[in-house]
């Protein structure tokens, strides 16, 4: 089973729940840290990291020696990530790729015309009549097309946006996505982390906070989502948003109310009104917060908590298979 742990609001206990669930399962399982902007699961699990992989995206690179200044690439880019400045007077032509705006759709490379070197040297002004002369190869073949002998001015190069770290602790395999500082695209990295889910192991996905694309990417394809919240007006406001997302995606979900004795009863009333299953209520205890601060999982410091987490899993299983 694939279970994602998400929340609208940050800091409600997603990582605490993910790590403690993984540790309470008592069988081999996989924990995927998909909060790639701020991954924290490793702090608690303290795994031995065995290897890492780079996560790359494709970014266009323009060879100005071959560019005929047709401007097609800039025209087809829906994200305004390319600017072409054709030569004029004494000024040589140039261009820019704004890598942070690029979504790696590949349209610029596809529409960049194939020009013979003769044509290229004589091209001095924008020629919009030039049309692409061949169909791009399928994406799987693309890699082989990136040799320097390409007749196109645009080729795609790999750009590293983050890393995937593979670790293990006891029965838990940890796969952590870590976005490079200064990079802004979390979604391709989350997608790649999730490719490592193995079909014969239970997977627990620690999702990023919020309700926009990174959260959606993390919960997509999960069999069940646990929404962790706290009973404050902020927690409730963001829970409602997260519930709307999951209903739109048609993924079954239940709620865990963390620090349930710490706020008011509006969250529980909302769940009752909306017919949302409350999987567990975790009390606020200063000793829990202190263990968290030191990076110690609750089930390690307080073994009596194990039951709480394994019961959550049992409740989900009985809901899914009934």
């Amino acid at each position, binding site marked *: 089973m694939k279970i994602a742990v998400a929340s*609208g*609001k*940050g*800091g*409600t206990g997603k990582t605490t729940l993910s790590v403690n669930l993984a540790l309470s399962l008592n069988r081999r399982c996989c924990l995927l840290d998909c*909060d790639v*902007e*701020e991954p*924290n699961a490793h*702090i608690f699990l303290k795994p031995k990291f065995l290897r890492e992989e780079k996560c790359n995206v494709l970014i266009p690179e323009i060879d100005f020696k071959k560019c005929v200044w047709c401007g097609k690439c800039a025209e*087809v880019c*829906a*994200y305004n990530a390319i600017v072409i400045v054709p030569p004029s007077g004494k000024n040589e032509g140039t261009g820019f790729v704004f890598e*942070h705006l690029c*979504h*790696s*759709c*590949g*349209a610029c490379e*596809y*529409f960049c015309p194939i020009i013979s070197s003769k044509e290229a040297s004589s091209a001095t002004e924008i020629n919009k009549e030039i049309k692409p002369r061949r169909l*791009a190869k*399928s*994406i799987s073949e693309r890699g082989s097309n990136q040799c320097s002998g390409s007749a196109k001015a645009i080729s795609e190069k790999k750009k590293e946006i983050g890393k995937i770290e593979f670790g293990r602790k006891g029965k838990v395999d940890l796969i952590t996505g870590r*976005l490079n*500082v*200064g*990079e*802004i*695209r*979390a979604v391709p990295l989350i997608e790649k982390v999730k490719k490592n889910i193995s079909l014969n192991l239970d997977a627990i996905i620690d999702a*990023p*906070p*919020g*309700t*926009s*694309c*990174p959260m*959606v990417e993390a919960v*997509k394809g999960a069999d069940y989502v646990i929404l962790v919240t706290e009973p*404050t*007006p*902020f927690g409730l*406001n*963001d829970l409602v*948003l997260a519930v*709307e*997302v999951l209903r*739109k*995606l048609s993924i079954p979900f239940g709620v865990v109310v963390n620090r349930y004795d*710490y*706020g*008011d009863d509006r969250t529980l009333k909302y769940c009752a009104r909306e017919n949302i299953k409350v999987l567990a209520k975790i009390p606020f205890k*200063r000793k829990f*917060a*202190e263990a*968290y*601060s*030191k*990076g110690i999982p609750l089930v390690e410091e307080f073994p009596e908590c194990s039951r709480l987490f394994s019961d959550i899993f049992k409740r989900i299983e009985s809901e899914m298979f009934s």
Partner: protein
Amino acid sequence: MKQLAIISGKGGTGKTTLAGAFACLAKNKIMADCDVDAADLHLLLSPKILEEHDFFGMEKAFIKKDICISCGKCREICRFNAIGKTYIVDKISCEGCAFCAKICPEKAVEMKKNQAGKWFVSETKFGLLVHAKLGIAEENSGKLVSVVRGKAKELAQEKGVDLVIVDGPPGIGCPVMASLSEIDFAVVVTEPTFSGLHDAKRVISAARHFKVEVGLLVNKSDLNPEITGKMKSYAEESNISFLGEIPFDKDVINALIAGKNVVETGNSPAAGRIREIWKTVKDRIYDGDT
């Protein structure tokens, strides 16, 4: 005009609580809630909406069934796996590149406008607030942040207000970067936990990558005084101003439940510290100005 951002890396450390308190303490300011996919600042400010606008994200592809010849070209080139076997576009996966529309031999793909959220200008008890609500499971939160920021800046200039307070989102990705552009000073709110420290370091590196000056503040500092100490020395070693610490205080939650912020409700220990911190922050923002 100066722009102050409140960020944290890790979620739930107290960004909005602090932004609400600063909104109450600053005399002449405009607030911008830039955590657009989980906006909460309005809950502290009882806003009355003055303006409401639609926000349009990237257009989405739509395949006209009657024209489509199922040739498969669009499915072959789409890198977002947004087009299913039956040639129906998954709106959530489509990133609006329009590659399919350009390549379709039958011109069966239409790019349709996509309302991806709303943004508002509201009157609140502490002044004007620009805020937004991203549509359900929509993308482009960075672009919406830029819209909110643009409007806040425009209002500030129009009304001669000399400060914009930006309540930022968690993380270090696209909406955070959009929240940090043109910022004069960023307050990083953290908590004394290993996760808080790990995440604060990453968001500080990200802010510095974009040449934004930062100060560090530890919330719920008495939860683990040892890590609070580590954070202080980290700030010192990295040449970051340490803005102070706020003790764990149940009054913060009580105020929140009453829909208020802690500096409004009285003189709890947290409120006292936040007032002192605001003075320090104010000095930093206007540092070097005459």
